[in-house]
């Protein structure tokens, strides 16, 4: 103890390293930032008054609603099918992994825009959709394809199947990140296979699944704007409809951009909450999380 005190006077104080680049960086950011602010405030082309007028316009709000609804349903479909695909890929046997692999290969390998337009035009391939025995057997129910495949259905199928292919890989990576001993310990305790998956393996896989899934949701929110090509009145399509009539293109694009930013911010907050929930027990100190 005495020795430590005696030496303390000779121990040098450590100063931070000089960082000249830091101040150059600050100057550049300040210059660019003030130019953007100056433009935003003084350039009349932005028409902030018009932006304000359209932010809560009923047609825009309906578009926001459709975008949110489509994103939610697409992600739900993607997540459910994705878990199924991951389980098929990782389970035993030959047929199921191959089917899952083929699905992923096809839906990840073709542009989502092509898939959207394809589903929308399904009627040219199959004029009617029927439920019955294939290869000319009896039919129990029949509808025309144009009636069955609305813009919304086409968008849901096109985006959802594509999303499932990506979610399948995300879920698979998450499941692979969980130690094999976990499922084994659960089985040894007598958990049935689905119980072991749901109670022991999946909650731990979620730690690796949630961050990339957050990326997917946020990406999908904006990808839904592709559905404007099949005439679905989502957010982007709604503002397009308005500015093609009023020619207030820039302010309406700003309206759309602001709405996307609002939604993405909300989603990021939700993601943070979910991540905290699945971090339980993860760090040795304060594992209460």
């Amino acid at each position, binding site marked *: 103890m005495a020795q430590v005190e005696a030496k303390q006077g000779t121990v040098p104080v450590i100063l931070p390293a000089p960082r000249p680049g830091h101040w150059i960086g600050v100057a550049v950011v300040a210059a660019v930032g003030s130019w953007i602010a100056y433009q935003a405030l003084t350039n009349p082309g932005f028409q902030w008054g018009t932006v304000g007028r359209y932010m809560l316009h009923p047609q825009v709000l309906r578009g926001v609603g459709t975008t949110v609804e489509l994103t939610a349903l697409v992600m739900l479909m993607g997540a459910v099918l994705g878990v199924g695909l991951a389980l098929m890929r990782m389970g035993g046997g030959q047929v199921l992994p191959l089917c899952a692999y083929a699905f992923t290969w096809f839906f990840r390998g073709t542009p989502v825009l092509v898939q959207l337009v394809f589903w929308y035009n399904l009627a040219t391939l199959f004029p009617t959709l029927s439920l019955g025995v294939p290869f000319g057997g009896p039919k129990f129910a029949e509808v025309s394809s144009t009636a069955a495949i609305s813009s919304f259905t086409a968008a849901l199928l096109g985006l959802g199947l594509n999303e499932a292919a990506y979610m399948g890989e995300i879920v698979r990576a998450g499941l692979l990140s969980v*130690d094999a*001993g*976990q499922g*084994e*310990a*659960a*089985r*040894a*305790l*007598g*958990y*049935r*296979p689905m*119980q072991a998956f749901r*109670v*022991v393996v999946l*909650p*731990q896989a979620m730690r690796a699944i949630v961050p990339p899934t957050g990326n997917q949701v946020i990406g999908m929110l904006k990808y839904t704007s592709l559905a404007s090509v099949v005439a679905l009145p989502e957010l982007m399509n709604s503002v397009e409809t308005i500015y093609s009539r009023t020619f207030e293109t820039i302010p309406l694009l700003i309206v759309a951009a602001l709405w996307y930013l609002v939604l993405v911010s909300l989603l990021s907050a939700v993601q943070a909450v979910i991540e905290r929930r*699945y971090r*339980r*027990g*993860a*760090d*040795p*100190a304060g*594992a*209460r999380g």
Partner: protein
Amino acid sequence: MDALPAAPPMVAVTDVWKARGRNQVLRGINLEAARGEVACLLGPSGAGKSTLLRCVNALEPCDRGIVRVDGTAIGCEERGGRWYRLRERDVSRQRAGIGMVFQGFNLFPHMTVLDNVCDAPVRVLGQPRTEVRERAQRLLEQVGLAEKAAAYPRQLSGGQQQRIAIARALAMQPKLMLFDEPTSALDPHLVGEVLDVIKALAATGMTMLIVTHEVQFAREVAGRVAVMVDGVIAEAGPPGAVLRDPKDPRVRSFLARAL
């Protein structure tokens, strides 16, 4: 049952064979442990000890032979003179009565210690939560960790985790406990606390099959010792005879190195 001349053994492994790819890992294993008996399984690494233990609770199916626990065939059943593998959900029910403790503890890191111990009895056996909680608290006391009920596994030392893993297995009130090198992943100074818990458990009359490298422990606790080499049981019998005076030269050289 009472009329039978002798009680059936708690575990009976009869001529069990298992291949992994081209590798014949188990080549005709026969092993028995009576009710309340502790059998220790020794042998060099790669001999097939873990594989044998995993066949006993059908974590892996064996290719040939039958494992019976308390008279019931595990993982398969006889129908019309033929043996069929059981469906996984039926095997699960059998596993619920056989506890297993792993080398790497395998506690569930996302659950508290108490939930680790309570979840299976509630979820798998459908027992009432309050009753299970009381039993769990008693088991945690028994392994000396009553105050850790609210902790998460990662906040505990290896020795503490392994003791919780033992409590978790005991919470299912198994008839048989399997241990696969329960102290091999522990720092030397933590080995004793886990072995003490297992010794105390032996004293309560629990039937146990223990794979271990702790020869001294086997000598103290085992009623029967078996030494496995290359997929066969090279020597088995009371610990005194097998450990002091082995006949098989492979067993002799293994023990010379292990002691």
